[in-house]
């Protein structure tokens, strides 16, 4: 069994430092938002967590497609890793969003397109894991996982569009936003810097966790094969 590569250890250290810096920036560097106050600071990690959740989802779908073409177990491990990281971060995204929505929208939850889409994404991820749990044969598990990841990734944008036809109240801070959205605001340069830095940091967190999870998946695979060998 090989030990942890040096580059990964370096990446771990960088990620921790970046996360500490980003936390510092969110609380002390970025100015307080004039209308919403300190609760707006949730925004930086909220969007960044959503970004990582999306990365995980796209990663799962892409590795699903590659798996079906190449039939290489490696891509199944990658897909599972992407899903597991995606679940955690989409959940963080939903929870932080609710914390922000309580004072701003005066409710923990509303069926806005983005909220609906995030929920459906979480549910599809969970269904993916339950599907895998129910199947013993590793090849079939990998094939079904890949198929479900592809189907799920196609369904999510459609959910978003269908929910979008209703009017939305979710603020769109990046890009052309609807100014009537409740809780919308303009970012000052310091806010933009903090925001970009959060995105950057979370991307590092994603890569770092992804790498670790893939390594874990490979080791699990090795253990499984060793066990099969001893049973023979």
């Amino acid at each position: 069994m090989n030990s942890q590569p040096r580059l990964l250890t370096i990446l771990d250290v960088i990620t921790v430092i970046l996360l500490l810096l980003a936390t510092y920036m969110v609380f002390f560097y970025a100015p307080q938002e004039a209308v919403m106050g300190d609760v707006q600071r949730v925004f930086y990690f909220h969007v960044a967590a959503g970004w990582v959740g999306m990365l995980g989802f796209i990663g799962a779908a892409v590795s699903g497609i590659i798996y079906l073409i190449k039939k290489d177990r490696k891509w199944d491990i990658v897909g599972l890793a992407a899903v597991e990281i995606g679940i955690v971060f989409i959940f963080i995204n939903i929870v932080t969003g609710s914390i922000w929505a309580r004072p701003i929208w005066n409710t923990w939850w509303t069926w806005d397109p983005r909220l609906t889409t995030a929920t459906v994404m979480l549910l599809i991820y969970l269904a993916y894991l339950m599907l895998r749990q129910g199947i013993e044969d590793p090849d079939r598990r990998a094939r079904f996982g890949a198929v479900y990841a592809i189907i799920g990734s196609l369904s999510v944008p459609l959910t978003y569009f269908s929910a979008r036809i209703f009017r939305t109240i979710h603020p769109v801070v990046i890009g052309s936003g609807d100014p009537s959205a409740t809780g919308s605001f303009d970012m000052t340069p310091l806010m933009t810097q903090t925001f970009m830095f959060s995105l950057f940091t979370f991307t590092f967190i994603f890569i770092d966790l992804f790498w670790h999870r893939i390594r874990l998946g490979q080791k699990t695979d090795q253990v499984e094969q060793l066990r099969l060998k001893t049973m023979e």
Partner: protein
Amino acid sequence: MTIEQQSALPSESASGKAAGFLRAMGAVVWKDLSAELRSRELISAMLVFALLVILIFNFALDLDPATRREPTITAGVLWVIFVFAGTLGLNRSMAVEKDRGCMDGLLLAPVDRSAIYFGKVLGNLVFMLMVEIIVLPIYSLLYNVNLFNPGLLVVIILGSIGYVAVGTLLAAMAVQARTRDILLPILLFPVVLPVILAAVKASTGFLDGSEMSLIRPWLNLLIAYDIIFSAVAFMVFDYVVEE
């Protein structure tokens, strides 16, 4: 010439191939229908279940006669009935293939796998539409609303196509899992949500007598979903049934 012989011929024209495909598909549909005509277990189960859901909704919502006729209530309750009864049917239709090794027999036949998929989809669609056709007048009667609306029928057909296209694929996966009895709704509902959303909205629109411009986006969404998911399911079905 039987289907097997025909599709095994190496030199055949494109039209012959298409005819073979259709014939294989028809054979699968016919098998499902004739088995169902004899046993009647699937349709009757779906139907009784649908009636029970109507009953439960009546008490769960404790509707007074005025709200009972609200288009939003009608559309919502109808689609909940169809979705739940549909899950029952889909699970059963794939479970019978798995149980006695019928699926292996089907797969051994030298026909295109996608013909089997579309055959199963068509069979399930027929079952679902039959249940819907029976449920609609009963619902009309019990809830005292007029459901004889051509627009509503179009929505029901479009929605059922999308639902069955994804449902058949996912049911084929679910029955191969250890947890097969509980897995299908968990897999299917989050994925099929756009269909349900659009179908409920379009149904409400038609029952409400809204303008076509308000309903069209939902119909377009349903059609887009039907096309995208039939195509994708067609492409990946091979991977679901291969051993």
